[in-house]
């Protein structure tokens, strides 16, 4: 196995997550897609850490995990609030971002 294997896999996962973000309407699934992308990035960090022989890559992953946890907490809080106010999670129906 080389760096390319791991980076290739991370890349593929990221692409899936990104594509999913575009073709799904459910807000919860959108958050899941974001999680996929975050994990893909984590994987790439880890593989670079492995192949460049440094601790920084792994430490970075820890920090990203913490941020991901925070993001999930806030994101889910937003989803709950959204559901309360709009009675739906269909993002194609929610157009409040229009100024």
């Amino acid at each position: 196995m080389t760096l390319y294997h791991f980076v290739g896999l991370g890349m593929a996962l990221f692409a899936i997550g990104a594509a999913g973000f575009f073709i799904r309407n459910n807000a919860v699934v959108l958050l899941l897609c974001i999680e996929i992308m975050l994990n893909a990035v984590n994987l790439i960090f880890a593989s670079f850490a492995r192949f460049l022989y440094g601790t920084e890559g792994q430490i970075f992953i820890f920090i990203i995990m913490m941020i991901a946890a925070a993001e999930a907490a806030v994101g889910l809080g937003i989803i709950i609030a959204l559901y309360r106010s709009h009675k739906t999670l269909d993002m194609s129906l929610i157009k409040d971002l229009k100024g």
Partner: protein
Amino acid sequence: MTSEYLWLLLAFPALGVLVNGLVGSRFRETTVAAIAVSSVGLSLAVALGFFWKMTTAAPVARIVATTLYTWLSDGALQIRVGLLLDPLAMVMVLVVLGIGFLIHIYSASYMKGDEGYRRFFVYLNLFIFFMLLLVLADNLVLTFVGWEGVGLCSYLLIGFWHQKKSACDAGRKAFIVNRIGDFGFILGMLLIIVVFQTVDYRELATIVKGSHGVSPGIIALMALLLFMGAMGKSAQFPLHVWLPDAMEGPTPVSALIHAATMVNAGVYLMCRVSPLLGQSPEVILVISAVGLTTAVYAALSALGQTDIKRVLAYSTVSQIGFMFVAVGSGMYAAGIFHLVTHGIFKGLLFLGAGAVIHAMNGEQEISRMGGLFLEIPATAVAFIAGLLALAGVFPMAGFFSKDAILWGSFEHFGMTFWLVAFAGALLTALYCGKLFGVFFGPKKYDGHLHLPSRLMVWPLAILAAGALTAGLLGFPMFTKDTVFARFLGFPATALTADAGALHNLEIIMTVLQGVAILAILTAAVYMFTKKKDRMAALGDAFPRTAALLAGGFGLDRINDVLLVRPVKILARFNARIIDSRIIDGAVNGAGYLTMFAGRLLAGLQTGQLRHYAFSVIAGTFLVLGTALYFAGLF
């Protein structure tokens, strides 16, 4: 010497400004005044200490200099915040602080009860600070900082009673006219920087005295441009128009700024750049000619004034003209000597006038004053001492300094020039006589008089003593080698060879002048006190002449027609055509364009999360792709 204490001179007034300016609103009037007066007093004490050191030091060691900070540095050009205290600066510092101190004391009483009491003292201290900066600066740029600073304070103090429209207008006028002069100052400074790569006075002197290979025309241009600045600040014809109007300010301000200190800054500047003047005889001629014109013209105008302060204002313009005559004659020591004596007696006269105005509840018209001698005797005696000094009567200070100037002009430019200057001196005596009418002759005012307080009388007494004794500095008479000149250490230019020699002609002329002035003064006093009504009738008999004199020969009218109206017409044209059509059109056009573009782009804002994410990722791709492209990866 102890140059490390030099900054103290500046520090005390600055401290006064800060204390009174920042926390003064909580203080009572007396506290504010105490702080302001003591800040100047402490500074004066330091200055006296330096003066003592300087008089005991050898003439070559009479320079105290220090560099506080390098402001700008660009290769050869170094602009420093440096202080230079040489005898010339010392004299100026003593004038500024000495007279400034007395005027501060006087103001503490004069301004009592004014709602702007604190503001007044903050401005006054600020003025002292900037004036000292101007005087102590060791280079042109720093001098210019002080120069503009005193200009600002002058503006603020002229317009001190800003509820009065005339005061605001006068302040603006002073500011704008000074801009014209400053324009010359800046150009001259830039030219010096370009040519000599330095602004330091001492370096400049060394360069100019050596073989610098710069054409005399350029040097003359520098001197001329700097003189233009001096003309603005020192109110020389035709840039003097602001000074009579500046009398709208409180009287102590007129005394301090518009008589004793700031308006003399131009003379001081010319002395500072004397090496440049020494190399350009044409400019010297210009300076003398302007000085002489101003001296005579302003003396004539003073004669026509009916407002006591405006008489004194025109008189100031005239006396500064005499100083410039001295500078133009290469007699810097005489010019500075007259600056000192004039500072003392004109400060005295203004303060005295202030006391009179104060006593008469703000009345400034001479025609409504008279017979005040017995009412306010102390003020009257001091005022008359000032008048005698201004006229140049024998034992008074003005006699010595004016005599030195008249003789210098004769020696340097010849008979005709002297005659005109002498006429100016006689006119001085004439308008001095007119002011005697304030104290003698029939009583014109029967209201209640406000007697001046002791705080106001004491400064008058001290200044009167100064006006009486300052002439001693001009001893020994009939030589260029007076006590004052020796202290100043100015090279008496070409006159060194016979500096100590007596001139029979000079003695004869001095006596002649003295007698003539005394005669004219006596006659004038008689006419303006005993025959006051006939003098008034004279004005009515020749109304046009009187109006001409009173209006300063209509220079304001000329300015109005030649400058103000065209500018106004241009402004109206700009407002009506250029502004409303072209500029507004452009502005509105920009607005329409923005709205149009906005409506176009608003389509991008769908509210759909997906579309925003699209933009984010597309942007990322763009940046990443660009980075990779420039990294040479595809």
